[in-house]
């Protein structure tokens, strides 16, 4: 099992979500975050451009069985790209996941994902 963490642009959340659903990845956890990378995205403030050091991003966490990792990653990539890939589109991190427990039933492992 793996834990896939994706940092994407907020405006792509919906598309990524749809792309994941198309791949039958139906369970995700999402949160707001801010990130610093190469991208710049100035706000305007009384006639001046203000460059925030941290830009609003969305963080998606998906626990998947190993055979779903690739599908998840490519779904995210498809959903998250702006015009075939722009700076700031984000990153995906893949972590080993040792176990997963469904609270409702207490079941463990791959079937609980």
């Amino acid at each position, binding site marked *: 099992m793996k834990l896939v963490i994706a940092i994407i642009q*907020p*405006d*792509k959340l*919906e598309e990524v979500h749809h792309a994941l659903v198309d791949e039958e990845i139906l369970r995700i956890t999402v949160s*707001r975050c*801010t990130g610093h990378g190469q991208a710049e*995205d*100035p*706000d*305007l403030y009384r006639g001046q451009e203000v460059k*925030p050091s*941290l830009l*609003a991003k969305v963080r998606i966490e998906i626990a998947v069985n190993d055979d779903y990792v690739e599908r998840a990653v490519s779904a995210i990539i498809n959903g998250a790209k702006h015009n075939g890939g722009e700076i700031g589109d984000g990153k995906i991190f893949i972590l080993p996941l040792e176990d997963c427990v469904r609270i409702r039933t207490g079941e463990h492992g791959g079937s609980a994902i």
Partner: protein
Amino acid sequence: MEMKRIVPALGLGLLLMSPATALGQDGAEAAAQIDTGTTAWMLVSTTLVLLMVPGLAMFYGGLVRTKNVLGTMMHSFAAMAIIGVIWAICGYAMCFGGSVGGWIGWDWDFVLLRGLDSGPGAYFGDDIVIPHLVFAMFQGKFAIITPALIAGAFAERVRFRGYCVFIALWSLLIYNPLCHWIWGGGFLTGEAIDFAGGTVIHISAGMAGLVCALYLGARRGYPKTAMHPNNLVMTMMGAGLLWVGWFGFNAGSSVSSGLQTAQALTVTQIAAATGALTWIIIEALHLKKATSLGLMSGILAGLVAITPAAGDVPPSGAIVLGVVGSLFCYGAVVLKGKLGYDDTLDVFGIHGIAGIVGAIGLTFLLRDGAGAEFATQLWYQVKGVGVSIIYAGVVTLILVVLVDKTVGLRLNDKDQMAGMDHALHGEHGFGLLNLN
């Protein structure tokens, strides 16, 4: 403004204007004639109606998604700026200048409010004199809020520049004529009872909203994607300010500070309360839960329904209009969900429907002696409603197509996804959400 009073009033006003202008700066004598109490209330009413504009911005702003909150509030604020300027330049002249064949007003002396800036003021029925400028400013606030109301219908999916052009034209080509016809001495003046703007304001805005919503199409993702209000708390604050401001809206429309003012304020209060109570009772029966948005929608439904009637129905009539207004609006809003078009914030479902309920319904509830004989008055009311629906509907359609094809009105999908605040204004409404 009850039409029966405004005709002689403005007639007298204009009569008086000229000699005063002729007499020149005889300010002292002029001031002596002015009723300071009525003037005070009309100044307050002007202020209260102005307060409704930020109130509306808050009400609407809280209902859209987080990424569109500033863009939506900007619609109300831009109306303050744009119509504020237009009104001073030529809006008042077009509405309340001498009638050109019943179709439009005009008076060169009203351009830039020049002729109003001095002089003794305008008479209103019962020998009440207030400075003419006060009346012009009071009316100007109505001109501001009407296009701002429309904006709810196409919230979250229009370009700011196109919106600015649209409301400027809408004000010039739809609001000003309609206002002239019904209140300013035009061909409908003296017929339909429209105390504070059922036909002129709410029906026209509701209809315009409907046409825009249909022409521009739904927001990207609607209705599949659930779209949550970003801040119902702010919507509640806005609803509170709207109720407060509406006292100026309706009670100010009596252009007096006496019994009729009190009557208008009273029925406004009662209809708002009744509308709110009715809506949450419907919800409690229908959904098993009373919602805050429901209570606020009921407030609005009651307030809109009483608006045309505020000078002419007794308290019991206000209760009826509050109940019926909420019933119809609730039905309309649920029906919209079924029909599937995207009137984002239910401008037609609330303002259009409750406006019609009020304008027609008042006929059945008039105080003894108010209005013409029943059938005649009913016909007047239907005619007023019909004219407003048809004129606002047709000309709005022309305008929205025109603006969309030239300046561009509908926001493209990419910018809709990014959100208006960032895409159009380069800002974020709630910086507090990010670390800073």
